[in-house]
C-alpha cells in the first residue's frame, strides 16, 4: 500500500504524449502522499514538490522551443520520473561519506556517537570500529561512556570481545572524564582511532546535552555522528536541529534500514542541518555498516 504513491504518479502519464500543467499537478498530488507516508518532513515535501513542478514546467517550455511543439522522444512519465529522482538526489546532497582522520601526534582520531535512546549507537560503535579497522587499517579503541543504562558497558564489552577490539570502561565514572582518560590511554597504547559510545538522550534534556558539550570540550572529537533510527517520523527535524545547534555535528548514521521503514527522515535531517548521511545500518551484526549512497536511497523514499 505504501508503494502506491509513486506508481500512481507515473500512471498519470500513461498514454499521454506530452507533459502538461494539469498532468504534472495530478502527479505531484500522488507524490505528495507517497512522501508523507515515507515520513519526509512537511516543509521539505513542499519545497521538493515546488522544485519538481518548476523543473517539469521548464521541461514543457524547453520541448516547445526545441521541437516546435512536437512530442517528446522520451515518454512524459519517464521525463517526470527522472526529474523526481534528480531533485531527490540533489536534496540528499553529494556523496560525503568520509571520516576525518588525523595522523601521528595530532591523533588519535576521535569519533563520537550521539543520539536518542535506542537509535543504535552502541551497536553502530562496534560496527564502526570494525569498519575503520578493515577499510582504513586503523587500530581502534572503543569507549563505554554510557554510565546510565543498565548493562550498557557490558553490551559494548561483549561487542568488543567479539571483534577483538579493546573497550575502555570505568563503571560509575563521569563521562567527560572517561572520554579524556580513554584518549590518554589510546595514546599510550598506540590506538589511532577512539570511538566514544554515549548514552541515549533527549535533545531537549539540557543537563545531558550539557554533558555532551563537556565531552566535546574535553576531547575535541574530529567526527561527531548523530545516530538516527530509519523509522523516525516528523520529529526528526527537531532532534537533528537541536543536536546540531548544541554540538556541531559532522554527519549522520541512519540505522535499521534492513526493515521496511522508508527513511524519509534522511531527507529532512540533511535539509535542516546541511550535514551529510555518512553511513547506514543494515542489521544487527557487526558487518552490516555501509557507506551511504544517495542514488539507491531516492528510490526507497519515493516508494
Amino acid at each position: 500500500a505504501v508503494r502506491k504513491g509513486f506508481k500512481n504518479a507515473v500512471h498519470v502519464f500513461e498514454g499521454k504524449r506530452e507533459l502538461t500543467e494539469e498532468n504534472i499537478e495530478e502527479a505531484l498530488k500522488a507524490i505528495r502522499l507517497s512522501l508523507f507516508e515515507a515520513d519526509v518532513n512537511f516543509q521539505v515535501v513542499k519545497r521538493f514538490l515546488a522544485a519538481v513542478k518548476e523543473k517539469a514546467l521548464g521541461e514543457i517550455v524547453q520541448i516547445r522551443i526545441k521541437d516546435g511543439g512536437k512530442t517528446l522522444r522520451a515518454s512524459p512519465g519517464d521525463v517526470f520520473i527522472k526529474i523526481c529522482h534528480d531533485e531527490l538526489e540533489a536534496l540528499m546532497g553529494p556523496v560525503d561519506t568520509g571520516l576525518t582522520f588525523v595522523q601521528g601526534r595530532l591523533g588519535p582520531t576521535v569519533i563520537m556517537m550521539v543520539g536518542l535512546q535506542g537509535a543504535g549507537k552502541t551497536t553502530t560503535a562496534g560496527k564502526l570500529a570494525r569498519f575503520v579497522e578493515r577499510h582504513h587499517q586503523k587500530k581502534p579503541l572503543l569507549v563505554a561512556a554510557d554510565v546510565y543504562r543498565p548493562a550498557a558497558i557490558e553490551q559494548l564489552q561483549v561487542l568488543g570481545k567479539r571483534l577483538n577490539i579493546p573497550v575502555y570502561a570505568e563503571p560509575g565514572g563521569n563521562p567527560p572524564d572517561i572520554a579524556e582518560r580513554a584518549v590518554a590511554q589510546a595514546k599510550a597504547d598506540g590506538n589511532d582511532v577512539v570511538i566514544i559510545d554515549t548514552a541515549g538522550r533527549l535533545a531537549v534534556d539540557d543537563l545531558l546535552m550539557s554533558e555532551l558539550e563537556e565531552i566535546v570540550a574535553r576531547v575535541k572529537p574530529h567526527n561527531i555522528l548523530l545516530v538516527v533510527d530509519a523509522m523516525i517520523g516528523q520529529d526528526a527535524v527537531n532532534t537533528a536541529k537541536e543536536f546540531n545547534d548544541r554540538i556541531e555535528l559532522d554527519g549522520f548514521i541512519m540505522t535499521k534500514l534492513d526493515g521496511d521503514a522508508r527513511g524519509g527522515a534522511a531527507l529532512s535531517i540533511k535539509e535542516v542541518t546541511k550535514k551529510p548521511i555518512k553511513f547506514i545500518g543494515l542489521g544487527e551484526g557487526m558487518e552490516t555498516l555501509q557507506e551511504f549512497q544517495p542514488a539507491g536511497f531516492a528510490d526507497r523514499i519515493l516508494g
Partner: protein
Amino acid sequence: FSAKPKLDAAAIDQVEEVLFTSDIGVKASERLLGALNRRVAAGEATADEVWPILREEARSILAAHHRPLVVGEGVTVILVVGVNGAGKTTTIGKLAARFKAAGRRPMVIAGDTFRAGAVGQLEEWAKRVGCPIHQGAEGADPASVVFSGLKAATEAGADLILVDTAGRLQTKAPLMDELRKIAKVCDRAIAGAPHETVLVLDANTGQNAIQQAKLFSEVAPLTGLVLTKLDGTAKGGAVLGIADEVKVPIYFIGIGEAVEDLRAFEVSEFVEALF
C-alpha cells in the same frame, strides 16, 4: 476562515501541516478532515471550532478501543514484543515494579537470548525492582527459555510473569516465526498464556508504526500497546493510524528512563498534547 460550506485549500493545508507533523499520517488525517468537513457542510461548525472538532474525532478514534490493563486473580503472563530499541526491556522493569507495588508477585523471563548485554540489562532491572528473573544459557533457544521460565514461575509462586523478547523488525520472516513459536510455547507451558501480548512502540516512530502493529499482530495477536519516549518532543500521532487497523488499547505511556516513568494512558490528555 469564515462559515463556508467546505474548508478551502489554504485552511486544509494549515490543518494538514499540524496533523502530519504530529505523525498522524495520511489516512488518519483524511478521516479527521472528513469528519470536520461533514460538520462544516452541515453548518454545525465555524472557523474557531476546527480544532475542537478535530480533537473530538481523534478522541473518538482512541476511545473506541480504550480500556485499562486489568489483571485477573490468577497467574497472568504478559508477552512483550516490538522492534529493536523501542523500550521493551525498560518497560518490563517499570511494569514489574508497578505490579509489585500493587501486591502482585512479578517475575521476569529473559527471552532475549540474542543481543549483547540483553540478559544483563534485565538482570539489573530485576535487582532494582526486587523480583526473580529466569534466564537461560547464552544463545539458548528463546522459546525453550520462555518455556522453562514459565514452568519455574508457577513453582516459585509468581503470579505476574513478564516475558522479554529480542527486538525484531517485522519484515524478518524467521524472527517473526520465532515469535509465533514463543507465543505458542507460552500456551504449552501455562494454558491460556500469554494472557496479554503487548507491543511496545517508540513515540518517535513515523508511519512504519502501522506496519509494525499489523505484522506483529499476525504472529502474536496483540492485546495492547505501550507508547514509550513521550517525554521527548515526538507526539506519537501514529497511534491514530494503528487504532483502526489493530483495534487494541494503549495501556501505558513511557515518560522517561526511570522505574517510575510509566503512566496509564489517558485519551483526552494524549489528544490535548497531540495537536
